[in-house]
């Protein structure tokens, strides 16, 4: 690389001994980042890798001379493109931000002003810094929209943020950052909140604009596979201290530091589950049996179907003691299915039985035993646990509610079950870490002695290392207590590592239902394959391969004639669709490996 040449140019970004501190309320100032130093050469992309709380976002924001509320830059030197960032007065900082250095935030849905049209916001940096007149800025924005493959680039700017998808907004935000042609662009976890299938489009858009515009970049992320696609070099942070620094290749293939090795291990897929053999034997009554469930809104039409369907005829038998996985992108109806089973989402037709007895749609109408044996663990423990109730009181309430003995020993036993020290019973949720809170959330469900636990994306908000530990815990509990789990996720790695059987949902339809053993063997539904191919891998040319594969496949597909009809739900996006896909509901057939696939194509076509 250029930096190793004889005529080494000075780095564009130079951070020396950076100290950041923060305080909560009136508490003491504590260090967030301690003595971080790194350089970034011109046109280079540096990854800042770390888990939440590692200080990676704080470092990235400090490059812009910005610290969040309660935090401040306490020491060190930051030089960016010839500017001494720590020494600049506010007015100079303002003309530096957005012009010399630009920022792409994690959650584009929240980072766009909901009350202003998008174009006004995209060209705003150019107008604020008087870089170009309005009309030129609009033309440049449209050029960038085209470059990043946004739909209808000429008119998309007139829309508002709530009208677009997360992946589109993320690309619009990249256009907003690049509008002034900045020297440095900071990417702060820009694809973390996106589905894997969308992530590919956004990463490819970022790579295209980088090739065309040639900026220097800092890419903040916890996802090592994304680092492999995007960055030239990487800095690994933990608790605000640099653990390791090197080229991406060296960090990913031969990590020196123990923490980097642990990160890599947590990112590598592994099987945690000892498969249950009782599935589908016919003699065992399913613990939960969802049959032809239809959920919708907007009233019921003349045909007895809801005007807008969220779930269409979804069937899902869950055997005692097995882990059933449900996977699909956001909006596929997986949370709705969980809510229907939990009794907080009424359905139009179909039915659910639990341990052989019909479940009433409303939780109030269910029996005490049903309520007790069917427990829900929500995604966000922060929102579920009452911050004013101690861990012990939270568990005690569940025990007394179900008429069990609620003594200290029982609470200690529950905490031990989720591998937490019994001393934690006196602590309050805000004092706990994210992983500890999720364990308490699990213990709360286990306190009811359930037969089936519904897990709605319970690892989605956690760091990789912590999430891996939660999955391990789930599998231990499955072995010890024989609990069945319904595990909803969008993370194929997590799904593979814990599930016995998997249902793939797309647009409210169950497109595939497969034992985990068949997941590795062809054939599969085209959508399942797409999901599989979308999971980033830790080799540097993965993204290039996926994109070229996608471009090859997109040629022989017949054009869609009708907008929406009775045909296959996946027809609009399917790379291998044929004429019949648009008009007829696909049949369900069983593959040699045992997967139930709903597709017009045959086993040979899909293999």
């Amino acid at each position: 690389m250029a930096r190793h040449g004889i005529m080494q140019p000075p780095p564009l970004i130079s951070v020396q001994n950076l100290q950041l501190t923060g305080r909560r309320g009136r508490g003491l100032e504590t260090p967030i980042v301690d003595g971080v130093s790194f350089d970034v050469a011109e046109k280079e992309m540096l990854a800042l890798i770390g888990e939440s709380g590692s200080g990676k976002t704080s470092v990235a924001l400090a490059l812009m001379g910005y610290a969040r509320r309660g935090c401040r830059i306490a020491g060190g030197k930051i030089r960016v493109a010839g500017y001494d960032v720590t020494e600049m007065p506010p007015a100079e900082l303002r003309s530096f931000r957005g012009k010399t250095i630009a920022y792409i935030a994690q959650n584009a849905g929240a980072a766009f002003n909901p009350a202003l049209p998008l174009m006004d916001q995209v060209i705003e940096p150019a107008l604020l810094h008087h870089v170009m007149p309005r009309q030129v800025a609009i033309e440049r924005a449209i050029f960038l929209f085209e470059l990043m493959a946004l739909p209808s680039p000429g008119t998309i700017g007139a829309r508002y943020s709530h009208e677009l998808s997360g992946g589109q907004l993320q690309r619009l935000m990249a256009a907003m950052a690049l509008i002034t042609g900045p020297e440095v662009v900071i990417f702060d976890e820009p694809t973390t909140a996106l589905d894997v299938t969308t992530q590919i489009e956004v990463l490819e858009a970022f790579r295209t604009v980088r090739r065309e515009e040639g900026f220097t970049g800092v890419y903040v992320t916890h996802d090592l596979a994304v680092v492999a696609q995007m960055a030239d070099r990487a800095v690994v942070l933990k608790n605000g201290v640099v653990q390791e620094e090197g080229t991406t290749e060296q960090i990913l293939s031969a990590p020196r530091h123990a923490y980097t090795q642990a990160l890599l291990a947590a990112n590598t897929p592994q099987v945690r589950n000892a498969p249950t053999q009782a599935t589908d034997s016919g003699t065992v009554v399913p613990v939960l049996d969802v049959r032809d469930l239809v959920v919708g809104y907007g009233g019921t039409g003349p045909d007895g179907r809801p005007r807008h369907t969220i779930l269409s005829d979804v069937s899902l038998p869950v055997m005692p003691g097995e882990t059933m996985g449900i996977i699909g992108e956001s909006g596929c109806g997986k949370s709705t299915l969980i809510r229907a089973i939990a009794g907080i989402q009424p359905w139009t037709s179909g039915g659910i039985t639990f341990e052989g007895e019909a479940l009433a749609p409303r939780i109030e109408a269910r029996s005490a035993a049903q309520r007790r044996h069917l427990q829900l663990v929500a995604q966000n423990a922060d929102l579920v646990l009452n911050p004013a109730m101690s861990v012990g009181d939270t568990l005690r309430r569940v025990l007394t509610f179900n008429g069990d003995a609620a003594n200290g020993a029982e609470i200690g036993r529950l905490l031990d079950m989720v591998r937490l020290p019994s001393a934690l019973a006196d602590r309050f949720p805000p004092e706990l870490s994210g992983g500890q809170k999720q364990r308490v959330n699990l213990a709360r469900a286990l306190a009811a002695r359930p037969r089936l636990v519904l897990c709605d994306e319970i690892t989605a908000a956690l760091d990789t290392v912590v999430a891996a530990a939660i999955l391990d815990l789930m599998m231990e509990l499955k072995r010890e207590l024989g609990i069945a789990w319904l595990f909803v996720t969008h993370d194929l790695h997590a799904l593979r590592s814990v599930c016995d059987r998997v249902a793939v949902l797309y647009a409210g339809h169950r497109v595939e239902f497969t034992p985990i053993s068949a997941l590795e063997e062809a054939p599969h539904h085209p959508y399942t394959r797409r999901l599989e191919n979308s999971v980033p891998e830790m080799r540097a040319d993965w993204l290039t391969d996926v994109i070229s594969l996608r471009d090859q496949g997109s040629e022989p597909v017949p054009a869609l004639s009708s907008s929406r009809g009775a045909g296959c739900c996946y027809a609009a996006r399917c790379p291998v669709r044929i004429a019949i896909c648009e008009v007829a509901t696909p049949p369900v057939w069983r593959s040699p490996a045992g997967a139930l696939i709903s597709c017009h194509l045959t086993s040979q076509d899909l293999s």
Partner: protein
Amino acid sequence: MTMNAALIRALLRLVGASLVSLVFVTVAVFFITAVLPGDVADALLGQAATPDAVSALRHSLNLDKPVLVRFVIWVTGLLHGDFGVSLVSHRPVLAMASERLIHSLLLAGVTALFAVPVALLLGTTAAIFRNTLFDRAVSLLTLCIVSVPEFLVATLAVFIFSVQLHLLPALASISDIHSIGSFLASFSMPVTTLACVIVGQMSRMTRAVMIDALGSSWVEMAVLKGASPAHIILRHVIPNVIAPLFNVIALSLSYLLGGVVIVESVFHYPGIASLMVDSVAARDIPLVQICALIFCAAYLFLTTLADIVALLSSQRRHAA
């Protein structure tokens, strides 16, 4: 096009709903005034009244008829634009009330003109510099002002500026106004008293609305684009907080309606509130009724206006 049709439908629904409320209010006003103790016959004839004279007067004023009959007579009058005649002065109550209403609107208008910008500015700056000494000083001051009842503020003001310092007249007489100086002299104390009540409340609510908006990611994004604080407030925050702010303003201004009763009484200001107080004392029921109706209609008008602004501001972005 369909968007516009939907908008017009929503607006009509809002206005229709407030008209329905107005009907209920009208009914309520009549029956509440009907159960007030004492009647105008007693009040007019005083101590020397003979039972015969009282019952003759009651008959001539229809007071001996059943409540429902009187209600029908009253409503029939309302529907023909006849709001009744004062039982005391025998003048049409509509004329009496509207002449006083203009005075009250002047007082309320001047107060709003002064109080709304001050409150918005105080609340916004307190939100920008939150948790600083300035913010705490504003919080403490507004809390103190909100906690003191307006009759005490008014009485104290009269005591200090009129009785002790002889700077301002104790009575706010509208007929004495000939110049800006005399306008200020008459209006400064009533307006300040009324403003005290609503500025405190309005600035605290504004601060809460603003803090909510300033903590959002899109404000951080604007900071990172290099926007100045003034640009952020005017261009980014204001369009987002128009609806809640307008609600704050409408609520505060409707609170003004209550404050005006006390302030007009203390300063003997010839507005509609003091007319209502006098008419209650005289048991002049038609006058009480029209005053009450005007107050209720003003309240309904303000809250409906806030709803319409909220509707329009959300409609604008859904229309695209």
